[in-house]
């Protein structure tokens, strides 16, 4: 029972991180029309930047997190303009493989700069608070709270601001949005910034609860994709929900099977989801077919 509670906490933490990482992928998929395989590498970049700010520059973790987020967001926009914009008209295959190429490029560059070693954040978030039946670290609480705040902010941004409304309009029908005179470039920049910044933030969080290493992006990409597919790739709230669900599923499964099978569990949930609800668990939107 105590183990159950503890794993629910872990699952909540994993799920929160997964949710903010997946929602960015899903936003890009919706407005730009392709799956950005390099999304996971932006997450790794966030982790490395955060780590460098804290360990080498002795920066406060909150400041480091915020700064990493902003920087990764800017990197995302720059990459969108110089790498993705030129192939925008070449179709989804070209865009997808450009993103794979970019993933390798970023992966290689990060290994040259940051090395191939595994490192840990030198922070004191590890102190455990004894809350009756369960232990929680301050860091874990902060992650869940920050994730909730970020999601709330994102929801407000999407529903209350003009730019947010444009993004939603573009996401539901890019062609129509273009015809209606919505400023496509501004929407695109905003989406890339928000999505990349969220990936960067997720990277810092992943680094905080675990470790920082160059392979991070590849393993995370898989789980992020699984969450995005389960959420139906479309609805932002569906993806948030399935991110949480997948996080819980992975950590609760640790009660029955060894933790090294986490990715296998994620894949099992994905296959099950596809068999039961091919459109995604939380969405029934029309599919796009040629």
């Amino acid at each position, binding site marked *: 029972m105590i183990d159950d509670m503890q794993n629910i906490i872990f699952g909540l933490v994993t799920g929160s991180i997964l949710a903010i990482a997946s929602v960015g992928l899903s936003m890009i998929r919706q407005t730009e029309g392709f799956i950005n395989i390099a999304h996971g590498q932006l997450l790794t970049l966030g982790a490395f930047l955060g780590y460098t700010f804290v360990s080498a520059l002795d920066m406060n973790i909150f400041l480091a997190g915020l700064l990493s987020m902003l920087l990764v967001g800017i990197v995302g926009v720059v990459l969108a303009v110089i790498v993705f914009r030129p192939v925008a008209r070449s179709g989804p295959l070209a865009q997808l493989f450009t993103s*794979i190429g970019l993933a*390798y490029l970023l992966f290689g560059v990060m290994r*040259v700069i940051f090395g191939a070693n595994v490192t840990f954040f030198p922070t004191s978030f590890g102190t455990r608070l004894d809350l009756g039946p369960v232990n929680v670290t301050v860091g874990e609480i902060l992650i869940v709270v920050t994730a909730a705040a970020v999601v709330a902010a994102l929801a407000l941004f999407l529903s209350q601001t003009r730019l947010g409304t444009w993004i939603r309009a573009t996401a539901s029908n890019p062609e129509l949005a273009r015809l209606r005179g919505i400023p496509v470039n501004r929407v695109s920049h905003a989406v890339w910034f928000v999505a990349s910044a969220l990936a960067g933030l997720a990277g810092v969080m992943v680094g905080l609860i675990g470790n920082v290493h160059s392979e991070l992006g590849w393993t995370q990409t898989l789980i992020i994709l699984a969450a995005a597919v389960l959420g139906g790739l479309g609805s932002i709230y569906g993806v948030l929900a399935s991110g949480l669900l997948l996080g819980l599923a992975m950590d609760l499964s640790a009660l029955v099977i060894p933790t090294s099978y986490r990715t*296998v569990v994620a894949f099992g949930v*994905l296959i099950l989801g596809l068999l039961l609800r091919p459109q995604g668990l939380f969405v029934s939107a029309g599919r796009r077919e*040629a």
Partner: protein
Amino acid sequence: MSGVLLFFVGVITLAGIYAILAMILNLEAGWAGMWDLGLAGLVAVGGYVFIITTQQTHEDVILTPHWPMWAGILAGSVAGGLAALIIGVPSLRVRGEYFLITTLAFAEVIRQLSINLGSVTRGTVGFNQFSRPFESWATGAGYRWLLLALVWLVVVVVYLLMRRLGYSPYGRLLRGFRDNDPVARSLGKHTNRHRIQTFVLAGLLYGAVAPLYVWFIRTVTPSLFTSEVTFVTWTALVIGGIASLRGPVIGALILLLVTEAASLVQGSGEMAVVLASVRFIVLGIVLILVMRFRPEGLTNERDAFAGASGKG
């Protein structure tokens, strides 16, 4: 001098292996339109089943059937086909990205399983002592030439097979419904059955050729089957020309010569990490540039299949 020569023998052998993988990928992705990002997983299934069923030296695993080599190749092939069936049926019902993501996830799962199921796969240590075919014919450097010949013989066989499939009504149908599924269905074509059959055939082939890769590397460990295998194969196909006939072979040769040339430069310690990383950077830049400036590749589908009605 002979060291450099042998190095290139190795590169051309590896290029041959990637040419085979790229031709199989061209069948499923180029012609049938199924974007498989998990072929490394199918190769892994074939490779592991082959080595587990045939190896004679490692006795600390729970499965040691000591089968003859041909039976192991067959078993690996069947296992590859079965794996394709299991992931193909649920993910091909919904088209497009779902297949792509499921296959990518599948490959990662196979890799995780190969790490975790140590009692069967020897975990990250893997298998490193096993015999290779025709070893009595040549040793040392001589065997490298023999393997080169064997691999390129398979390249020719697979090429002829793909030619046979590509120029048949079956290949025509695949290249048709790839771009327009509703019209194919309106003509009474059960397109999903063709897709699943094609993916299973690809699985059988990946499984069957996996031993070549195993013989070339001389070890079987999980790190052999990372998604890098998948993406190198895709890059080779894309460079050479997707949906063409000769493109996969040309692309594999060019790509492997470019990326492996980087490893000619020897380094130690941190320098080795940098050099290894340069390979990824080169791979990434090549892919981005090809997509930007020559998305159809060096050869193309148009020329490969031009003038098909010539007979009359």
